[in-house]
């Protein structure tokens, strides 16, 4: 087992690097010393049960939460305690697909998709609309969808719009938070295909969290497993079935018996 990059043979400095990242909420320790490297162009998926700290890890990297200890590097520059304009500048490198899509209810679809262009990059509304419609096309949505509001879309369409919003600014790094949660198996596969295609087209680095193993296998180059705030296994996707790790084996086979005991209460 290795906690360092080893999977896809990508060379050079890591795109994202975490060293000893810790985060607790009161007495509840959520992240307990995370060390992880994500290499440029790589797609890493973090798996783990509910409440193991996957979302907290993503939020720490994005700066939505500040770690209690440890350091986070993006493109070799430390971003752990950045705020204000410096944080906004770092976030321009990112795109994010949220679990529930997190589309802005009060804005039409095209404005949701073009939001990062208009607000983050100062692109004019007319040009942003054209680019938003083109991006909607890339995720398989017709131009007519552009003027609808998020509440008029199905769950699968909302995910596609969320994906379009994540890639519209052509970011270097894309995060996917439970991209297939709440979708039927066919739509899940459609979203997985779109994720693979979009990441490949952009040449982006992708970091995803999920507990859907079908999705994890399809979209990842490497998989890391998080349990009780620590990474218990990191390795290439092709090796996950012969990891020899009891936590990984229990998780990927969905067994109730094993070293992972489900918590009934969050705290």
């Amino acid at each position, binding site marked *: 087992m290795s906690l360092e990059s080893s999977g896809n043979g990508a060379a050079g400095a890591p795109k994202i690097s975490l060293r000893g990242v810790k985060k607790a909420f009161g007495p509840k320790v959520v992240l307990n010393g995370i060390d992880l490297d994500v290499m440029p162009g790589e797609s890493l998926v973090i798996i783990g049960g509910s409440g193991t700290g996957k979302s907290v890890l993503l939020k720490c990297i994005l700066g*939505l939460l500040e770690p209690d200890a440890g350091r986070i590097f993006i493109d070799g520059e430390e971003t752990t305690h950045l705020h204000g304009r410096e944080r906004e500048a770092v*976030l*321009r490198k990112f795109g994010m697909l949220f679990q529930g899509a997190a589309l802005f*209810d009060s804005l039409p679809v095209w404005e949701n998709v073009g939001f990062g262009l208009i607000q*983050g990059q100062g692109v004019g509304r007319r040009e942003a609309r054209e680019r938003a419609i083109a991006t909607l096309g890339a995720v398989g949505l017709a131009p007519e969808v552009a003027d609808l509001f998020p509440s008029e879309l199905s769950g699968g369409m909302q995910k596609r719009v969320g994906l379009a919003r994540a890639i519209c600014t052509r970011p270097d790094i894309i995060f996917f938070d439970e991209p297939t949660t709440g979708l039927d198996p066919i739509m899940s596969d459609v979203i997985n295909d779109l994720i693979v295609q979009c990441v490949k087209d952009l040449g982006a680095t992708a970091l995803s969290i999920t507990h859907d193993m079908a999705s994890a296998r399809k979209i990842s180059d490497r998989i890391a497993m998080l349990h009780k705030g620590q990474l218990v296994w990191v390795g290439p996707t092709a090796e996950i079935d012969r990891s020899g790790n009891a936590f990984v084996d229990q998780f990927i086979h969905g067994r109730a018996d094993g070293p992972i005991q489900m918590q009934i209460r969050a705290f």
Partner: protein
Amino acid sequence: MGFLSAIGRTTLGFLEALGKITLFTFMALSHCLRPPFYLRHIGRQMVEIGYYSLPVVGLTAVFTGMVLALQSYSGFSRFNAESAIATVVVLSITRELGPVLGGLMVAGRIGAAMAAELGTMRVTEQVDALTTLSTNPFKYLVAPRLIAGTAMLPLLVLVADIIGVFGGYLVAVYRLDFNASTYINSTWQYLEFMDVVSGLVKAACFGFVISLMGCYHGYNSRGGAQGVGAATTNAVVSASIMILVLNYLLTGIFFS
């Protein structure tokens, strides 16, 4: 010991909340004063707060003016002071009832709406999404609401003052058989510029407090639908209490 620790816990909780609100206020104010300014959003909030609150504030004002005229008449007629009714109506409306009742009605309508909207955005991760799109939620969500609330409440109250005085006029002239021109003259005769201005300054303060409480409770809401509901209730209750307390303090400053 249990009793003492309960008092200590409550006091600490109160001080913590006070500190959080103070920090939130300073942060919100600093974002109100620094670019970029989201003019489109400020305009949208102004229409929402000013234009769409007109019916409820107008109705409140007209009936308040009408009741005031009736009550004043029944009281003042006991010592033949009916001629003071127009003055009582206009001073009561412009100094107190216009801003306070208007503020309370807007707290119910706008404070609740702001808390519910921002609370829903918080629990559905829309606020986090704004941040990841390099947009400061304070600038995009909070500052436009604070600016619009502070700017629009005085305008609303000015309209409410006019409607309220008109309500008193309707009752006095058409029900109590006052002479119309005499009533209007009495209304103007003792009205001073400061009476109206003090009410408008109060309204601006109330507008700020309503928006601040709506944004604060919405922005910090947690725990799904129940959390949003609690945020909405807290926003309306805290804004209403602060309006009443502020009204006393401002009245003391203006008229003591």
